[in-house]
C-alpha cells in the first residue's frame, strides 16, 4: 500500500526515553483521506462509516492509517497481516497474524493534531488536547482534579489558567491511558505533583499502585498540550534523566 499520492501526513515528533512519538496532521485534506481509507481493514471501514460527522471520521481514518503504516514499518509486516484487538477497558493493541508483536503503542487526537507513541515494552499512554478556553473549567476541575491541583489552578488567571488546566489534564489522561483502565479509575484520587506540571519529566507512582513506576513527561508546544506516560521496569529506574 502506498501513501505517495498524498505524501505522508505523519512525522517524527519526539523521542521520550525509550518511546518514540509521531505527530499526525489531521487538517482536512481530501486526497489524504482517500488514501487513508485504503489502509483500513473491513472492520475498521465499518467503524469509519459509523461516525456520523465528517471531522471525527477523518481523524479516525488519518490516525489509524498512520498507525498502520508506522507499525508495519517497525514490525516489518504487511498491512494485511496487521489487526487490532482491545482490552476489556477498550485499550487497543496490535496483532500480527493474531499474535501480539513486541511493540506497544497509544494514540490520541484533538482537533488538527494526532500523536502516536510507540515503545518496545511497558504500558504506554499519550494524550493531546488543543487548548480551548471553556466556560466550565471550575466544574470540570472539581470533577477531575484533587485539592492541590484545584488550588494551583485557583492561583492563575487568563491564558496561564488555560495552559495549566490542559497541562494537568493531559498528564492525568496520559497516566490513565497508560494504566489502561479508562475512567473506571477515579482521576480525582491521584494528583499530578508540581515538579511534573512545572517542569518536564518526572517519575510518578499512583498512591494506589506504589510498586509501579511511570516515566511521565509533558511534551506540549505552542499549538497543543500533550503528555506521555510510560511504565518503567525496575532495571530502568536508575537510567532516567
Amino acid at each position, binding site marked *: 500500500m502506498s501513501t505517495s499520492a498524498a505524501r505522508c501526513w505523519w512525522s517524527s515528533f519526539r523521542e521520550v526515553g525509550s518511546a518514540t512519538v509521531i505527530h499526525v496532521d489531521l487538517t482536512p485534506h481530501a486526497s489524504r483521506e482517500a488514501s487513508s481509507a485504503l489502509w483500513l481493514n473491513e472492520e475498521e471501514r465499518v467503524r469509519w462509516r459509523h*461516525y*456520523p*460527522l465528517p471531522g471525527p471520521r477523518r481523524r479516525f481514518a488519518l490516525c489509524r492509517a498512520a498507525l498502520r503504516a508506522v507499525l508495519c514499518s517497525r514490525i516489518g509486516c504487511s498491512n494485511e497481516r496487521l489487526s487490532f484487538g482491545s482490552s476489556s477497558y477498550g485499550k487497543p493493541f496490535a496483532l500480527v497474524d493474531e499474535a501480539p508483536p513486541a511493540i506497544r503503542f497509544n494514540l490520541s487526537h*484533538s482537533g488538527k493534531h494526532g500523536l502516536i507513541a510507540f515503545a518496545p515494552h511497558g504500558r504506554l499512554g499519550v494524550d493531546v488536547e488543543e487548548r480551548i478556553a471553556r466556560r466550565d473549567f471550575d466544574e*470540570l476541575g472539581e*470533577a477531575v482534579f484533587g485539592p492541590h491541583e484545584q488550588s494551583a489552578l485557583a492561583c492563575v488567571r487568563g491564558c496561564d489558567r488555560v495552559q495549566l488546566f490542559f497541562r494537568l489534564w493531559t498528564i492525568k*489522561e496520559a497516566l490513565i491511558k497508560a494504566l489502561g483502565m479508562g475512567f473506571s479509575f477515579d482521576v480525582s484520587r491521584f494528583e499530578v505533583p508540581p515538579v511534573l506540571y512545572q517542569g518536564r519529566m518526572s517519575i510518578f507512582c499512583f498512591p494506589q499502585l506504589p510498586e509501579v513506576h511511570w516515566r511521565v513527561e509533558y511534551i506540549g508546544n505552542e499549538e497543543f498540550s500533550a503528555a506521555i506516560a510510560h511504565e518503567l521496569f525496575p532495571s530502568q529506574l536508575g537510567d532516567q534523566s
Partner: protein
Amino acid sequence: MASIEERLKQLADENLEVDGQPIGKLLDPSKSLFDLGLSSLDIVAFGKVIAQEFNVPLTPEKGAEMRNIGDLIAYLEANAA
C-alpha cells in the same frame, strides 16, 4: 413531559458541539459519545450537566461502565428523580 432521550438530546444541543456543530440530533442509543467525536473532557463535563439536570449521581467511573447512550438512558430511567 419529554422523554429522557428527548431531554438528553436537548441537553446535548445546549452543551456539546463537535467541530462547531450541535450534536443533539445525532444521539443514538446504539452509539457511544466517543462515536460522535467527543473528547474525554467533553464527556466528563456532560456527565456533570446530566447529573445536575436529572439529579442522579453520575461520576466518570459510573459513566465508564456504560457502553453506549442506550445504557445511559436506561440508567437515568431507573434512577432519575
